[in-house]
């Protein structure tokens, strides 16, 4: 198997990120560990796909801001917090755990985009 072979892995193997909340709106940042993975993530982690992933939470819209300089992405997800920290019945009213929901999506990338980890 070479570094060019495609592997299907959780996004968590390829990228990291965190969430922040303001009211009923969540932002999730996403940064590839290997900068060169940026374009492929842009292709595969689309606004539509993220909206679908958070549909069970009532997400109504997703805007993806691209920051090729960093490189990274900022997803802004509306109405996903079921009222936000003020009104939510969820234990996690801030949505602090939700970056790890996004990181559970799978992507298909060359093996070279998955950093080698001690194991």
């Amino acid at each position: 198997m070479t570094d060019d072979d495609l592997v299907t892995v959780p996004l968590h193997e390829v990228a990291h990120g965190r969430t922040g909340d303001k009211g009923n709106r969540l932002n999730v940042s996403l940064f590839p560990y290997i900068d060169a993975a940026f374009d492929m993530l842009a292709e595969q982690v689309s606004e539509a796909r993220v909206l679908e992933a958070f549909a069970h939470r009532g997400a109504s819209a997703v805007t993806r801001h691209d920051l090729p300089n960093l490189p990274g992405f900022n997803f802004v997800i509306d109405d996903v917090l079921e009222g936000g920290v003020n009104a939510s019945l969820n234990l996690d009213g801030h949505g602090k755990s939700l970056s790890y929901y996004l990181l559970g999506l799978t992507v298909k990338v060359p093996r070279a985009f998955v950093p080698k980890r001690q194991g």
Partner: protein
Amino acid sequence: MPETMHIGCGAGFAGDRFDAAIPVVATLRQRTGARFLIFETLAERTLAHAQRLRLDDPTRGYSPWLERYVEPILKEAFQSGIRIVSNFGAANPMAAGKLICEIARARGLDGLKVGVVEGDDLRATMSDDELLSHAIIDGLAPPTGSLVAANAYLGGRPIAEALDQGADVVVTGRCADPALVVGPAMHTFGWREGEDDRIATATLAGHLIECGAQVTGAYFADPGYKDVEDLARVGFPIAEITDDQGVTITKADATGGLVSVQTVKEQLLYEVHDPTAYLTPDVTMDITSARVTETSANRVAIEGVQGHPAPELLKATLSYEAGWLGEGEISYAGPNAYARAELAVNVLRERCALKGLNTPVRFDIIGAASVHDGDSAALRSAGSFAPDGDYRVRAAVTSAAKDTAQFIADEVLSLYCSGPAGGAGVRQSVTPRLSTASILVARDKCQARVTLLEPGA
């Protein structure tokens, strides 16, 4: 050589570690030049809680933890010329200022001056009707008579003024979090409103350090993926800002944690929506051109952030009473635990129906699906989970009526003797809820003012 100011953070939220500032102060003492320590302790709803404390007792209403933050470091900071800036004044900055004077007096810190920044409280300048006539830009309109607090986000200028007047400690109420750094930068370098790239530089530094250890390896560590050494002693951040608009993030000496390109990038976008327009009272910050570079171990430089004119209106937060939250939890473990947990949920659901409850109740089975799930339990319904395990049922309801909140807590408790086998470890809570909504107000509705207190005088 450009002139450098050093500004550390000792708390990133109300309730952050009380001893975190000690290594920050020890590190700042070794530095030369202008040095500051900030504490950011005022989340959106914290101020409303503080306002309630003030209504009960007019001498209170500041951060209940003020003394726990200040006592361990006040003497060392004052004697080393490290000036403290914090929003722990909350709903009563003047009372907080007087308390700090008392602490200084008790410790014999002669000559210590406290600058108190007021003017964020909009209920001093507007009636509730006038406040509620503003369009809500985020959240739901507060019901009539429910308003607890209304505060505008002040910028860096009044903090700079207090420092200009010689304050060793500056206490504010509501201000934009990055203003805790913008004010000291204005004071140190003489930067002014309208010098947008400069103000953006200070805003960037403030944005990166105001959440404390979130930029130094906390809210980050992910074993095997993002390893952080000695997280139990995570060092809190220090920003170095130069008068030629350089920003470097580092952390307190001899501590754990990590400052890396990755930790800085994650915090750079924290609570940011449109990265071309991060709005504060002082500037509109554009971070899309930012470059983040590790210059040496635990030192990261950020360049290329741009500033644009500040928004014309100020954001303000309305806090209001929003009923009650009732919660109950019970555990099931061992063989067939998942089926027993599901049975408990079904019993609770039926009890709610028998009671005729028409308020939506949320049920989680922790260990199967909870924080990632929605109120309708779509993930749990679609998933399959090990029959044997260690599961915890949770029920939650929110209601204007305390009885309804209490009802769900009571029903979970009754499962001990009237529910499935082996139900254990019930916890219940019924708590009042505060909610917030945001409005935009004209700048002339909040005239910031600075009062200098001198304990000796």
